[in-house]
């Protein structure tokens, strides 16, 4: 499980990706690409004002 400190950092992410590739193969890389796509969607939604960040 992840802690709140790790949530905002990339610490452990490369290790998790390598472990995922070993266990699940290249689907992990597809997941990483898909999460980058999700990031892009979130940024676009924010820029358009569709989904403002909640504080």
């Amino acid at each position, binding site marked *: 499980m992840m802690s709140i400190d790790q949530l905002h950092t*990339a610490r452990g992410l490369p290790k998790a990706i390598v472990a*995922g590739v070993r266990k699940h193969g290249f689907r992990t890389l597809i997941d990483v690409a898909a*999460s980058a796509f999700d990031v892009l969607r979130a940024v676009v939604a924010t820029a358009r004002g569709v989904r403002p*960040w909640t504080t």
Partner: protein
Amino acid sequence: MDDLSLGPLNLTPEQFFITTDPKTGVEVSRTAVFDCDGTPRTTITKTATAYTAIVEVTGLAPTRGTNADERAVGITSLDPPTVTVRRQRDASKSLRALIDGAVRAVMASATSTTGETGGPGGLILTVCHVTRGVRNALRYLGEEI
């Protein structure tokens, strides 16, 4: 509750299980749990009408509840961040809504806990971590995503 090994993924009963009605034996829901280092523990339950995602991050202690905007997108709780999305005819649309709702719930909960967003990098990495967890759990469920 029955155990089921899900084909080539070789999932354990802790990672995937089916809940049935004890009286009739009819399947009620399917639950997948994705938990690995570097990813929030994500539990997704699929019923006939809805998907429910619970994203667990240690240390989250939000100081507020959900507001009207969050409830409108299906966020039912911030501790732990929980989102429920109705299943639609277009499956990809509801899965995207589930991912967006989970991200927003975790962001709101983390911001309410620490009092800061983490900046652009923190926000992007939060999206990245949460979507990886949700997508992997959906894959355990057998969803095409």
